[in-house]
């Protein structure tokens, strides 16, 4: 088990089935939220959200920030993120907070996406995951 520098979060042992369920839930609810967000942004033609094969791709379109990719990483039971703002990051699951957290910072995936996307789209983004 790796050393975690996070003060707030604690990684748990996940079995494959539980991991599959939790990671799917997280990515699916993100997809749904971002799809609705995209629908509202009528002027942003190139905004695109695609979730298939466990990979979530968000193109920010004319907001100019680039492309986000989130994907499942079953061997490590993690969710991996590629952010055009902050770069790559890996997230483990903490059951007590029901959140995906990064071991090197104290930040959860939900928090990072909220702050970055709020900045990018210039509006309050209520990410549906912790």
């Amino acid at each position, binding site marked *: 088990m790796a050393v975690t520098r996070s003060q707030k979060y604690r990684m748990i042992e996940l079995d494959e089935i539980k991991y599959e369920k939790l990671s799917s839930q997280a990515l699916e609810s993100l997809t749904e939220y971002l*799809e609705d967000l*995209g*629908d509202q942004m*009528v002027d942003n033609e190139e905004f*695109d959200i*695609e*979730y*298939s*094969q466990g990979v979530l791709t968000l193109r920010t379109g004319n907001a100019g920030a680039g492309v986000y990719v989130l994907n499942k990483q079953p061997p490590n039971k993690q969710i991996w993120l590629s952010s055009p703002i902050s770069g790559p990051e890996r997230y483990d699951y903490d059951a007590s907070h029901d959140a995906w957290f990064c071991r090197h910072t104290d930040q959860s995936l939900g928090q990072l996406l909220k702050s970055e996307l709020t900045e990018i789209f210039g509006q309050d983004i209520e990410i549906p995951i912790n």
Partner: protein
Amino acid sequence: MASLLKNSTQRAVRPLCRFRGLASLPVYLDAQATNPTDPRVLDSMLPYLTEQYGNPHSRTHQYGWDSEKAVDKAREQIAGLINAHPKEIVFTSGATESNNTALKGVARFYKGKKKHIITTQTEHKCVLDSCRKLQEEGIDVTYLGVKKSGLIDLEEFEKAIRPDTVLASIMTVNNEIGVIQSIEEIGKICRKHKVFFHTDAAQAVGKIPIDVNAMNIDLLSISGHKIYGPKGVGALFVRRRPRVRLEAIISGGGQERGLRSGTVPSPLTVGLGAACEIASVEHAYDYEHAKRLSQKLVDGIQSRVGHIERNGDPQHTYPGCVNLSFSFIEGESLLMALKDIAISSGSACTSASLEPSYVLRALGSREDLAHSSIRFGIGRFTTESEIDYVIDKIEHHVNRLREMSPLWEMYQEGIDLSTIQWSQH
């Protein structure tokens, strides 16, 4: 694009078999059933069947990248024809699959909150059968009747909408009688009541102008072989704004944005794309051609044969589909007599049964006339001399069959046929 159309000024473009002078094949007038593949479409497909045969989903090599590029181009060509965004085009195996996906996909996705669908009695079998299947799953379906013209009553349609109606499916051009529904009005009504609007446009795409935005269409089915493309491919337009969500009916690798798994058949999609591009350039010319020949056919038969009835309102019909009923004779016997003309009575998919067409029945056609109907399909490659030939043959055989017909005899004696008591054996 220029290379595709360099032959377009010469309208002598014909399917290959005619060039070889195969006189034994019938004159083809069954355009609603299928059409020859345009030689220009075939040209566009060949490289993807011979050298560039890569799987468009192969990410790691040139074969895959080339195929993917070709498929993306096809998407653009199809989207261009209906004023959609390329991302809104999903490739399927044909309009039947597109219809199934639209109906079952949307109904099942919204099943929790909405459980009502509206359609018409004159839809294609695949739409009606999908609805029947959904009824078994607990969805309510309203099958709207049609007026004698073949058009639905817009007031009746609007009244049929309930708060829990999720989808209305109404075909643009009917495959049996060629009637064109008032798509723009229907789209307006659907948008007003926040009901998704699906239309089976298999017989309409590339033939009459379609604009999914102006017509408020949310889902649209396209068939390859109806617009001179290859058989075995079609597409479904799925609107992204406002987003239409649907459950995929085919599970697998998640291709086509998860809506339709399976390797996208690059040669076929390239063909469909080429067919759509040709149609976007040539549809006006094709329409005039069909209209001219159609007028000639109807006028010719009407003047030389008589006692015929046109099924479907000619004012709201695509001219390339002419459905005529010949009184006092039986449709099948006329068809058999016209061995050297390829036509049909009723639609191809229902021709195995002996029942008269349900579409004609929905129009309120009399039993005897429904049994004596013939559908003539005129297409891009139909010639004027073929129409002349058909008129001659029709006149000859209709007169011959009427000579033999007891109904004709009775009519001439002044007997009112509706007073006949038919006895059982």
